[in-house]
């Protein structure tokens, strides 16, 4: 068991390493191919009328001239052991896990990430709850009432759901619900701790928009799963015992039907926690996703690395948790060390 967790964490670390490496490759190696000189890169971070001296100084300060591999391991090192940064004549300690300082705002990346995390987390968790409950409920009902009007309706809607891009539904929601009909105020995020009401009203639309998409997928998958399970022999056995239909469905069919959903949920939640870029964009929530986009456009490497890492971490953790939960749900699965 422990052994297993360790191995999984090992795999997780590997994954993080790879993601980081690729990010590095994209931002350092590719531009070099593109013929961007270290100075060219530095030019991005040294304001608008850079003198050659200033450029070189920056190249030096950001270590842009060093081989990628060196920069990579510097990053890893400061991540693990922390690091020191020089500002003017002042030296600043950056404790592990140190993600360094933003190239463009000079603010500590980790701090910035943590500052934005609550927004993304509220978004992700809220939406997740909605889509999981909603999706599964609808899926089960459709499966049970297979072929009924409800089933057709629900599945129709679900298909519509998976076919609607967030940035369309989101915009429509804003255009009509907020601006045309003024049902809701212009969404403005407020921390749950400070103003739950505002927090809720601000999050409502994003939640629904984001959840709708996933809920649709989950409904479809749950339905398929239920139908498969309902055709199993042990369901027949359950009926042969004389169990009531609801008991057959909710005790015998639901559990096996949901086990695969669990896996998918893990992955999805992990992804969304890493930043729901489009949703955050559309509703201009200053979450991790939006932060990431800005960073990428500003070529703010430490931030980009921070964000991608965070995203990967979420994915790894969520998957691990799911896999650890699995044996509890399905006794056949034993965690072989």
């Amino acid at each position, binding site marked *: 068991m422990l052994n297993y967790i360790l191995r999984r964490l090992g795999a997780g670390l590997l994954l993080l390493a790879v993601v980081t490496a690729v990010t590095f490759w994209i931002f350092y190696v590719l531009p070099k191919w593109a013929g961007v000189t270290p100075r060219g890169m530095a030019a991005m971070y040294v304001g608008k009328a850079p003198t050659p001296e200033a450029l070189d100084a920056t190249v030096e300060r950001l270590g842009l001239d060093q081989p990628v591999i060196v920069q990579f391991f510097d990053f890893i090192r400061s991540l693990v052991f922390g690091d020191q940064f020089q500002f*003017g004549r002042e030296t600043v300690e950056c404790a592990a896990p140190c993600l360094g300082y933003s190239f463009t705002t000079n603010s500590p990346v980790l701090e910035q990430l943590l500052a934005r995390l609550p927004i993304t987390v509220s978004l992700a968790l809220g939406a997740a709850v909605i889509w999981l409950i909603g999706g599964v409920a609808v899926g089960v009902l459709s499966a049970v009432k297979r072929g009924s009007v409800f089933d057709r309706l629900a599945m129709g809607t679900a298909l519509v759901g998976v076919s609607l891009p967030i940035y369309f539904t989101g915009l429509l929601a804003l255009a009509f619900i907020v601006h045309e009909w003024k049902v809701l105020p212009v969404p403005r995020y407020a921390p749950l701790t400070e103003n739950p009401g505002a927090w809720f009203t601000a999050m409502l639309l994003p939640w629904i928009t984001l959840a709708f998409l996933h809920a649709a997928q989950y409904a479809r998958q749950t339905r398929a799963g239920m139908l498969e399970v309902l055709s199993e022999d042990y369901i027949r056995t359950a009926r042969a015992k004389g169990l009531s239909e609801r008991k057959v469905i909710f005790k015998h069919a639901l559990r096996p039907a949901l086990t695969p959903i669990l896996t998918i949920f893990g992955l999805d939640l992990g992804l969304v926690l890493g930043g729901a870029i489009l949703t955050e964009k559309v509703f201009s929530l200053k979450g991790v996703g939006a932060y990431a986009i800005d960073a990428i456009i500003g070529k703010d490497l430490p931030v980009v690395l921070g964000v991608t890492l965070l995203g990967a971490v979420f994915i790894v953790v969520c998957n691990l948790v799911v896999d650890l939960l699995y044996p509890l749900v399905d006794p056949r699965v034993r965690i072989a060390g």
Partner: protein
Amino acid sequence: MRKRTLGFVALGAAASIFLAACGSGDSGENGGSDAAAAFDAGSTGVVNPSEETGGTLRYAISSDFDSTDPGDTYYGFSWNFTRYYARTLLAFTPAPAEASTELTTDLAAGMPEPNDDFTQWTVKIQEGLKYEDGTEITAQDIKYAIARSNYNGGELPNGPRYFESSLDQEPFNVYESSDPMEEFTAIETPDDYTLVFNLKESFSEFPYVLTQPQTAPVPEEADRGALYKENVLSSGPYKFEGQYEPGVKLDLVRNENWDGATDPIRPALPDEVTVEIGVAQEEIDQRIVNGELDVDLSGVGVGPTMKSQFLQDLESYETNLDNPLSGALRYVNIHTPNLETACRQAIAFAADRDSLHRAWGGDTGGDLATNLLPPTIPGSDPESDLYPSEDNKGDLEAAQDKLDECGESDGFKTVIAVRDGRPNDLATAESLQESLKRVNIELEIKTFPAEDFFAQYAGSQDYVRENNIGLSVSGWIPDWASGYGFGYKITSGDAIQATGNYNTSELDDQEVNALWDEALTTEDPDERAEIYAQIDTLVIEQAAILPVVFDRAMFYRSDELTNVYYTSSYAMYDYMALGVNRG
């Protein structure tokens, strides 16, 4: 050049898609078109004059400061705003419209004295001025502030480099030097209240440079390099409350150690000043109209959505609207390395200026431009037009002749570079693409990230040559309202840089360059204006720059704001004057 929002609001543009149309400043010249005049009070006079203090003045911005450190900022709004906590040697006169471009003193006791060839300037500062912590402000602090902001090896990258380029000083780095004050010889401080600036060359407009925030005092021991912006040591009427949180907020409260009597430009009416950072443009506009906010810090005016709402329901809003010139020229660089003069002129002739003007939002979007210098600048002649055509639809015959002249009778192909997230820039390019088709000049539009547009693409000599970039859409705002403050960086051969090049068309014309030098040794502003007019004509003649519009911004003036007026020197409301009255 002060890029103001032109250069950088794009950060925001990228950040919040609802800002996509930002920078589309819009207009109504003081008086402007008759239609506009009705609602333009704030552009020409003071609205709700008041002495009343108190209250909280609420700013919001969709992007962010480039930095709150006076030594490290180049945004117009930031130069306007930092004055709350950073007093400079000189300042612009606190008065509406053109009057504001007159210089006056701030820290200085009197206007600076030049020697006869304008290579040495001496200025005295008032005695007994204090920082927020009560310690006294000395000339040395100002000297150090200038040193750190110009000689820092990229530690403070954002600010302009006028001192570095004009002072007679060996390059050095304050942060590596053992004794920077010793090493920094170009500025002498004979006593605690006197500064002597030694320049390389004559610089008749040097006083303008002394209005820049870089002249705000910073005690050497208070300097924290790039981190100084987190909490700037205030010399003005307000000081930081807590830290500045990038992308989140900045709060200011009164600085008890500031003495109003010493300060000619700051009534300092509100008790507190707050800035919400990173709010979507849409939301800002809406909340200002709802009275939940007071001012859009970025000073580019409302977004297109709100604007068209205003325009369609003018009755309800007009008394709250101002529509002044933003002071910016929107133009297209025609790159000299890739296109010969005649070919460039062909483009100038073929361009459908009317279409471009419409693309920029018609009359409220800006005034159709035919010359280089914005109307607010001495020497500007908006009437001049070297490429006239009926209804400004373009003169195709003339264009064809020019094409023949440069040996491209069948037209040619080239690339036009545009910044991402700038619908108006894009519309400009697309409109041009359409109109040039008429003479078989084929434009391929390529968009680039706004952030490194000048650093790596249109502003990189190599890139421009390798990728046959013939045109690029740009915009410009004067660092100060003079021909030099506007035009030098974008037209002087001496200003050309390998990367981050703002003379993007790489115009290197002996005549033009000579005229710039001459201007710097000319004392009389009117004579200088003469010279600038000549430069204007030459540049347009060379067709290195295709002017599009002098754009206008549309501001919503909240009723709760007092002392509101538009200052040409920053091309937005004078933030120092503003007060609030919630009554």
